């Protein structure tokens, strides 16, 4: 036991030294996970199923952002106002393409099954097929190597907290994430669309009796979730480059985040994303970098076993 105590002492010492550095990166990742996780949670609310192809919405957003950045930036190195404008364009491009892919997905892989009142297993299989089709298609068309995205800024340390450097990239994610997640929260809580999403999530049949168009609401839910997923794909690609398989791991983690917060619970997904991002980042101290993905998976299994309703609890269709 002495050996183990020693091990912990060393690692907690490292943790104390590196805490803020890891925390900053974890929060930035957490916002990305949160943006993808809300896509899972929204779709789960209205359809009661996990959208297995959400990873490919993320991937297509990443590629859309790459193409736009490549076309607009080329070899120049923008700064100042141009940076802001380029990032907004990139997010919009990622979001639009994500929404388009999500819509197509809903039309092709989900709607025919819904019309037939198919069982859950059929949806899962169809979504897995669609996911496989999409990312391998991307591999065929865009090559199978990771490409780095032209940067709309020169990444540098903007300021430090407790000695930990905060890079511009993290600040971009933070601002974009806060704006989009707050915006989504307000849309779902206050608008007519949000009301119909919540109504369908609570009880689709009754909602349709009250005059809610279920088909339209489901399609719009996919668009909203897809837009955020695509935008997150762009922001992710900005940091780590784009490749056809880029969706798999972040999406698995975002799903973990959604379950962690309580699937169907919008704010839960955001909090779950942040918690997972930070927990994963801090775990670097204790495990080798190669096993980082195992940590997220371990959290997923632990949550499913001990608290399958998540931190905030499953809440389908209630505001917040």
């Amino acid at each position, binding site marked *: 036991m002495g050996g183990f105590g020693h091990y912990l002492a060393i690692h907690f010492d490292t943790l104390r030294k590196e805490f803020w550095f890891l925390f900053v990166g974890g929060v930035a990742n957490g916002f990305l996970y949160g943006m993808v996780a809300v896509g899972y949670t929204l779709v789960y609310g209205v359809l*009661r*199923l*996990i959208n*297995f192809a959400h990873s490919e919405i993320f991937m297509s957003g990443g590629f859309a952002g790459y*193409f736009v950045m490549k076309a607009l930036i080329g070899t120049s190195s923008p700064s100042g106002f141009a940076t802001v404008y380029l990032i907004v364009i990139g997010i919009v491009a990622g979001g639009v393409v994500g929404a388009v892919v999500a819509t197509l997905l809903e039309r*092709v*892989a989900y709607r*025919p*099954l819904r019309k*037939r*009142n*198919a*069982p*859950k*297993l*059929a*949806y*899962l*299989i*169809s979504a*897995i*097929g*669609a*996911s*496989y*089709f*999409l990312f*391998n*298609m991307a*591999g*065929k*068309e*865009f*090559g*199978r*190597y990771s*490409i780095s995205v032209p940067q709309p800024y020169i990444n540098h340390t903007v300021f430090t907290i407790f000695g930990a450097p905060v890079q511009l990239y993290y600040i971009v994610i933070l601002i974009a994430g806060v704006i989009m997640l707050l915006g989504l929260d307000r849309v779902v809580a206050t608008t007519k669309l949000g009301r119909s999403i919540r109504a369908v999530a609570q009880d689709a049949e009754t909602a349709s009796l009250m005059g809610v168009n279920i088909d339209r609401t489901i399609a719009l839910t996919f668009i909203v979730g897809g837009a955020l997923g695509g935008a997150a794909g762009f922001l992710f690609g900005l940091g780590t480059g784009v490749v056809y398989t880029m969706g*798999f791991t972040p999406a*698995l983690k975002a*799903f973990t985040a959604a*379950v962690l917060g309580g699937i169907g619970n919008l704010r839960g997904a955001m909090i779950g994303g942040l918690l997972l991002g930070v927990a994963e980042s801090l775990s670097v101290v204790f495990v*080798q970098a*190669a*096993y980082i*993905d*195992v940590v997220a*998976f371990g959290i*997923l*299994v632990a949550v*499913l*076993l001990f608290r*399958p309703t998540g931190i905030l609890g499953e809440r389908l269709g209630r505001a917040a």
Partner: protein
Amino acid sequence: MKTFFNNPMVRRFITAAAVLAVVAVMTGPAGSTEAPTSGFTGSFSERSSFFGLFETVRWVPFLFLALVFFGLWTMWLARGTQIKSAGAKVMAVPRAATERRPVRWGIGVVLLFVALILPHVINDPFWQAAMVEQIAVYVLLAIGLNVVVGFAGLLDLGFVAFYAIGAYVTAWVTGALPTPPLFGIHMDPFFAIPIAIVIVMVAGIVLGVPTLRLRGDYLAIVTLGFGEIITIFANNLYGITGGSQGSALIPHFSLHIGPIKYAWGLTPVPYYYLTLIFVVLFLAAFSLLEHSRVGRAWTAIREDEVAAESVGINPLKYKVMAFAIGASTAGFAGVVTASQSNNIFPSSFSLAFSINILVLVIFGGMGSIFGVVLGALIIQTGSMYLLHTPPAGYQSSDLYIYLGALLVVMMIFRPAGLVPSRRRRREIVLSKAGEGHPDEVLTGDEP
């Protein structure tokens, strides 16, 4: 304008054109990182022949196919029911014949005979190797996954994990890993078969007991994660698995029973027969299992878990059983592959592998043993053919585009698969007579 697009004929044509445009891109030339749009443009503008008749550009034959598709679709809408009933009349006699037990046995014997002489008919070394590595082994894997997905209705996306465990146990037992072998002696791969099957089944139970309590969609994602985790461990535990380098030489099978001495070698045909023996054994076992008490319990759980529990079936127990029994074939397949190819590499145990097996089960027909075997034969032979003689513009990794599309198409148009299981067929017939819903039997819906 709006009325124009609401016209069903117009919508049908647009859909047909869109489907064929997707097919054109799927089969078209590949793009690249430097020229990412070249794949799309090339799919339509590249020169190609119009079905061997004259030279033209690609969009012409595809537009023609879209028109044909549109015509067939329109005809099907007008005449579909007549064609279906005519088809049912033609098929009635053979279908009734195959319902009879002696006929089924006869077909089985004939198929077995064909399987026995096949390696003597096919002399091409590529196909002889493919018959073992890509066809016989995959048939085995498919009938194993069919127990999990088809009989018990559990979506397992981490089937590759059990296959990997089987392969690594073989390497371990034969002393090909950095870890000292079991009991400190280098055993023949034959001993690896029971050891691997037992270890894989234990792994199935260990993974199954906690996770099989979960809802179906959670189970899918947890097994998916498990499949990835196994690869991560295999890749990084250098001292135990040999890391990304894989293992040292794994010996071939050899037999020493009294006067009988036989050693398997590099040639694939002996491995073919060895695998065939196990395919037959597993087929027999699973066919018996399907109609046993256990098999009926699986059906009950799949169709309605709450109802099954209320009549005294313990769902968790039977689900774990399905998980472990299905995994056993993957364990055996791992042993055969490891011994035959001499090497194992973590990179070969990917998610793509699990999906490939899932496609075989879905295409053939969930829960239908004959269907799954047929599906596995068709798809694996097809994919091997594509590998052997690739058409212009085809890369081997494009296979997964087709498999993914196939999953979606099957779920939309024929969720019961190529050869639906007999129970399923009965449900479809009943639902046409107005009793029940054809999809209810696929899996129990969540409460």
